[in-house]
């Protein structure tokens, strides 16, 4: 039977293709404009792991799972799947059922240029490609050791080299059931595995596109996502056109208060809501802000320089200054990240003296760092977990060290260094050579000196930093962690004994009780039992001080009044859910 496209869909596609050739504002289309602040590395899904690439890939491609737009804490939901995967009784095998009727974008790689229906073969092809060692996939760690036979397949691809043929090699744990279903068998029960299926690097790619474009797939993306990319411009304006065949719908469930904010008015509507997303590359803050103030951008993150001009802190809250309050909307949300000082426990001075580590914890003035150097754009952490994740201090209520010279002096005396006498100069490594890092170091130096402790900053570039923390070649390191997925485990693993150098546990902390609690909590569902284990781990960390906790960054942004349905989602781009009030936009910015 001939595959016939319904007339309205074909017409819409035709109109949108024509629209791609014209400047979007010239037509009566709903256009959302947002400036990219950096260049993307690659639009070939497995070849990227940077936020600029991710933002675009997540609009053009789809993944098996995605993060719910409105619900918090972040939660996975089906994207290319009909429903969440079913887990076998032994908790080892997931069975996936694909959503019916999902089509790839029309592209020259398909016969007749017509996108075909996506099948289980495409998913399996994409997973095999993700595991190919020759693609240098940065996010491989997401599946490393998780799927039965996948690591062996990866080793075989490395052995075969970039030109070798591994297409006939079977992967024990990945099985096709029929055209729309397949299963994945894990090496051990691991609910965290599902997060890897929401990563843009595991997006589903058609084999035809890889065969046709090969290394140049980045310049010719072909996905099933809400938008198509008319032309890939690394430096100019990326113009994403609405995919009229997109399968997604606006969420019907939100977090508490979302309905009152009008975020559920479009519940159930077909996505995307705008016709075009325009993304010019503007790397400097001034032109970005000037364009926003002129109404040429619809929303934008707020950089440090403009932050101090436009935002006022009111207690713990932030608001736009009166000059901007009537004209724009502001938002802010905690990032999925933390900062901390890693104390190297292999260092003879720090490793053998707990009181000294506790004293140092009282001298790291994180609040001053936030207030003075970051304009207040951060929240001091009381546990290692960022605030918006389940298991953060909001659940565990953990306590931390505050800047307190008197307490530090007392502990220093107990540690054998009254008023810092006899204590060698401590070396703190910073993973940047910027002015900001130097200012930060100056602040710490002054604070430590108040208790008689001398520190010597050492500024290194990022690769050198990595080399040194991985070989435990440092005394104290100013570190940070950007979450790979929104789960507390991703942060507690930073101190798991088996993750010592060269792993992410830079301190080399090795505590049997901590490891036991970590292992018990690792794959546990969120709930009181997990929180109890987290509390136990927090207590151990507070007592042993392998790290001094820093802060959770706050991400700020500004929007025009005509932007609708916006809620910052750090795990998935918001563009397909957002809408523009065209009438209000025509009126311009209120003066």
């Amino acid at each position, binding site marked *: 039977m001939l595959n016939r496209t319904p007339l309205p869909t074909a017409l819409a596609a035709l109109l949108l293709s024509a629209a791609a050739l014209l400047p979007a504002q010239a037509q009566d289309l709903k256009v959302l404009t947002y400036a990219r602040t950096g*260049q993307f*590395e*690659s639009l070939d899904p497995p*070849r990227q*792991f940077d936020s600029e690439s991710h933002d675009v890939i997540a609009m053009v491609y789809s993944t098996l799972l995605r993060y719910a737009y409105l619900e918090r804490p972040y939660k996975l939901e089906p994207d290319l799947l009909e429903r969440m995967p079913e887990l076998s009784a032994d908790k080892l095998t997931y069975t996936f059922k694909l959503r019916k009727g999902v089509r790839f974008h029309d592209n020259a790689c398909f016969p007749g240029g017509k996108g075909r229906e996506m099948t289980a073969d495409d998913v399996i092809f994409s997973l095999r490609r993700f595991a190919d*060692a*020759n693609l*240098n996939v*940065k*996010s*491989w*760690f997401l599946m*490393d050791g998780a799927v039965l036979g996948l690591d062996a397949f990866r080793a075989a691809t*490395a052995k075969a080299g*970039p030109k070798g043929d591994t297409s006939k090699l079977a992967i024990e744990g990945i099985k096709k059931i029929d055209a729309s279903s397949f299963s994945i068998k894990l090496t051990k029960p691991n609910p965290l595995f599902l997060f890897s299926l929401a990563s843009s690097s595991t997006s589903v790619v058609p084999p035809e596109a890889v065969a046709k474009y090969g*290394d140049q797939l*980045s310049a010719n993306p072909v996905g099933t996502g809400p938008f198509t990319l008319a032309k890939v411009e*690394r*430096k*100019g*304006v990326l113009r994403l056109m609405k995919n009229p065949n997109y399968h997604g719908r606006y969420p019907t469930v939100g977090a508490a208060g979302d309905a009152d904010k009008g975020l559920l008015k479009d519940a159930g509507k077909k996505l995307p809501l705008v016709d075009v997303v325009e993304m*010019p*590359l*503007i*790397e*400097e803050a*001034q*032109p970005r802000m*000037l*364009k926003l*103030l*002129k109404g*040429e951008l619809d929303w934008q993150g707020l950089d440090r320089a403009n932050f101090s001009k436009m935002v006022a802190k009111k207690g713990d809250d932030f608001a736009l200054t009166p000059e901007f309050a009537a004209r724009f909307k502001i938002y802010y949300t905690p990032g999925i990240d933390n900062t901390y000082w890693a104390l190297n426990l292999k260092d003879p001075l720090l490793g053998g003296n707990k009181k000294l580590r506790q004293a140092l914890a009282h001298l790291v003035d994180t609040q001053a760092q936030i207030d003075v150097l970051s304009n207040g754009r951060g929240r001091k952490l009381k546990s290692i977990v960022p605030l918006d994740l389940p298991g953060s201090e909001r659940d565990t209520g953990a306590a931390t060290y505050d800047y307190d010279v008197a307490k530090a002096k007392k502990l220093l005396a107990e540690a054998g260094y009254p008023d810092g006498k006899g204590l060698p100069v401590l070396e703190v490594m910073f993973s940047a050579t910027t002015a900001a890092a130097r200012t930060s170091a100056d602040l710490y130096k002054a604070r430590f000196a108040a208790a008689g402790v001398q520190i010597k900053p050492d500024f290194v*570039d*990022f*690769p*050198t930093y*990595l*080399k040194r923390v991985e070989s435990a070649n440092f005394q104290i390191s100013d570190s940070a962690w950007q979450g*790979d997925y929104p789960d507390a485990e991703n942060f507690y693993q930073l101190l798991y004994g088996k993750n010592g150098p*060269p792993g*992410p546990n830079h301190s080399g902390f090795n505590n049997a009780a901590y490891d036991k609690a970590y292992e018990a909590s690792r794959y546990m569902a969120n709930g009181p039992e997990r929180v109890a284990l987290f509390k136990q781990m927090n207590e151990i960390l507070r007592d042993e001080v392998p790290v001094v906790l820093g802060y959770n960054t706050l991400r700020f942004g500004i929007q025009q009044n005509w932007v609708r349905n916006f809620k910052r989602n750090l795990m998935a781009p918001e563009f397909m859910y957002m809408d523009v009030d065209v009438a209000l936009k025509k009126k311009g910015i209120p003066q």
Partner: protein
Amino acid sequence: MTAYVLRRLLLTVPTVLGVALLTFLLFNAFGPDPVRVALGQHATPAAIANLRQQWGLDQSLALQFLDFLRQIVTFDYGKSFVTGEDLATQLKAGALVSLSVTAPPFIVGGIVNVALALVIARWREGLLDKTSRALFIAGMSISGLVYVLVLQYVLAFMLGWFPINGYVSGPGAVAYLALPWIILLVISMGPDIRLYRTLFLDEANADYVRTARSKGASEGRVLMRHVLPNAWIPIITNNVTSLPFLILGSFLMERFFSIPGIGSLTIDALGRGDLPILKAVTVLSAIALVLFNLLSDLLYAWADPRVRLV
């Protein structure tokens, strides 16, 4: 003349070789490890070894250097480590865009600045000279970044005379390039006019000029017929040695006005440890500098026969 040209051309070979060796050592032996930059902090030792092999970084430094020399000779710099895109294509496209940013203000500036310097020299120590001196010295002490920030804010944002930023290829680019051109022109005025004025005045006090004046030649004729032709050599040097920088683009303009030239390509590559781009741009700009210096020497020889005898 041919012997002179050949001698100068032969001298460029060891210079370029020296530059290539320095560039290579700077990035390959002492620079940060590009494999670690590319793979990030989740990299496994196997993945690091695999990529090192793919990029040829597992070979001895001598072999890598030979390969680098081959790239210089064949103009085949391979692909960017980060984006996987062909470098020769990127460099060619970027160089043309950079030229479109820097060449027009260079040419217009050359004419306008020489003319203004002549006018100022004509009425030296007059009101115009004194006022312009104060203005230019003040202007020269302000960073180029300030000009960009202020003129973009005033002319594009407040007055709306130009787009705030952006770029399109083709004739439409003029609308976007006009403001960067004006800024580059304004930035060049202070140092260029001050230099040319000094050159003209040096010549204006020479014996042959005094003779011309004593013969009753008008001040205008003295400047145009005697001073200007004799001041050409340092003006040529100043302009010809600037030519490679036209191709390298103006990083500030490209960055603030989102223009996809070669300047921003280099800065991006620095941030991402993209070794092939960095090495290509460094060595190509060195070669351009050597060649344009050669051109400037040839122009001297043409303008002043005494140079050929040295």
